[in-house]
């Protein structure tokens, strides 16, 4: 992440009551948490057009590479409201970790709602790039919970 971008973000959240900010360039997600409040999420699902244009300097090459990744990475969003857990019980090991390979249909988390645990399964074969919600935190409808890099067919 470019230091200029970091500075820009810090300026943006100054004077707000945002206490936690997650920024993901490849998948183009911005998640933030408000003080005492519910989780609010802004999802920019389409990477900006400019980023997929290969640039012509050293920095540019990196951008181009990132741009390519961005167009393939996938965000799995919560379709329910509840509490997010990375493991089926407090004592069990987590289903997966960042970097884990996953199969389509594989259990990767649970969300507890109304005393019932609902399993979250991966919707594709690939690799977990990022777990976007901390274990035990709340999720709302539509909130990004995982970034998955699909297996490249080549």
């Amino acid at each position, binding site marked *: 992440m470019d230091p200029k971008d970091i500075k820009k973000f810090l300026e943006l959240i100054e004077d707000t009551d945002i206490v936690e900010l997650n920024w993901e360039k490849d998948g183009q997600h911005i998640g933030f948490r408000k003080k*005492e*409040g*519910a*989780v*609010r*999420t802004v999802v920019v699902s389409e990477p900006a057009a400019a980023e997929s244009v290969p640039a012509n300097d050293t920095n540019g090459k990196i951008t181009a590479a990132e741009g390519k990744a961005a167009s393939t990475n996938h965000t799995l969003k919560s379709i*329910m*409201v*509840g*509490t997010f857990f990375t493991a089926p019980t407090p004592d069990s090991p987590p289903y997966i970790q960042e970097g884990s390979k996953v199969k389509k249909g594989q259990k990767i988390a649970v969300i507890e*709602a*109304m005393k019932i645990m609902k399993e979250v399964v991966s919707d594709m074969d690939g690799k977990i790039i990022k777990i976007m919600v901390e274990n035990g935190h*709340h999720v*709302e*409808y*539509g*909130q990004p919970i995982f970034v998955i890099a699909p297996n490249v067919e080549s």
Partner: protein
Amino acid sequence: MFKKILIANRGEIALRIIRACKEMGIRTVAVHSEEDRESLHVKVADESVCIGPAQSSESYLNIPNIISAAEITGADAVHPGYGFLAENSYFAEVLQSCNIKFIGPSKEAILKMGDKVQARAIMDKAGVPIIPGSVGVISTAEEAVKLVRKIKYPVIVKAAGGGGGKGMRIVQNEEALKNAILTAQNEAKRAFGNPEVYIEKYVEEPRHIEFQIMADARGDVVYLPERDCSIQRRYQKLLEESPSTVISDKLRKKMGKAACRAARAVKYVTVGTVEFLVDKDGDYFFMEMNTRIQVEHPVSELVTGIDLVKEQIRLAAGERLDVDQDEIEVKGHAIECRINAEDSDKDFIPSPGKITKFIVPGGPGIRVDTHVYQGYTIPPYYDSMIAKILSYGHDREEAIIRMQRALSEFVIEGVKTTIPFHQKILANQYFKKGEVFTNFIQKRIIEETSSKQ
């Protein structure tokens, strides 16, 4: 008292409830669909949770997500507003099982009043006048023919699980009756999942008069002065006022007491409304009970000084009524106009879109309840009501003039609204004289307008 209330609704009523909570020192949780992120109720609440996509069935009617939202935010009560889950006894039941208070009556009271046939029987037993008609459900045409020979035509066939005019058929003679029963059953099944219908004598040129009641858990019930909601279009209320021009002090007392009996008969707690039809002779008949706060509650607030939403919350929390019947009196006159984003020139088709200019009326005697603002986009998924304008005056004439003044100031650009239609109603001579029946819009506005053209 509750510490945190989740509001399972949107629009102006969500905002209204949040306002009451703020004034009571109760924290608030707004729930919202993805579409409603920029809605005012979300911005004004202390917390908010997105509970689903735009479609109501997946968001504002999504019981598991709403209850999860209450759980993760630690809300100890849920206010359902009106519409959506407000009269859903299952929702009330699930909340109860989760130890979250439903701000409304018991699930039993909701169920009893929700089944129109059962409600009729309970009212009859409680001594509340009901419209002559079938005692229970009508199953066959033969049964219907026999009954109507006694009560005479015209009659109306209604759905037991119904409301809002759906599944209703007015029948003028025996030939039409059989077919009407079948059609109504089919329509009722489609609309409410319940094909049961019943028959009532059709009251001609009635007024829609309703009584707001407040009841506590101890069984004390009081009524507020009546609201006249006769100005309707296709069973949808457009303009409400309090008091009515035709209800005498004596009749008010009689009907008010009947409304209280209705509430007691189902052990009603919190606030509710008993709706009556009043015919030309001043006879009144129970129509139905709304077991929730209503759109038009502010007209009663203006003439009595009672904050109904605060009272509703207090009563739901188990507190006692703090007002006696003889302390409640009508002072002045209040009118409400429901401003919808609809094109009244084109059969009231909804007019969603971005509000490019929005200047609300103000000054003396004007109250505005709205969740929209300049720059807000009205989504096409929900109710088209975007504002309620209320006027208060020393008498009906002043309330009418104030409303006319307020509507003339109200600037809404970018979408069509029903403001011009309300201006027609307010300028109508029959309206000014108070000669309003439930057919007013059809007879005095729509037919008169088209006959002039």
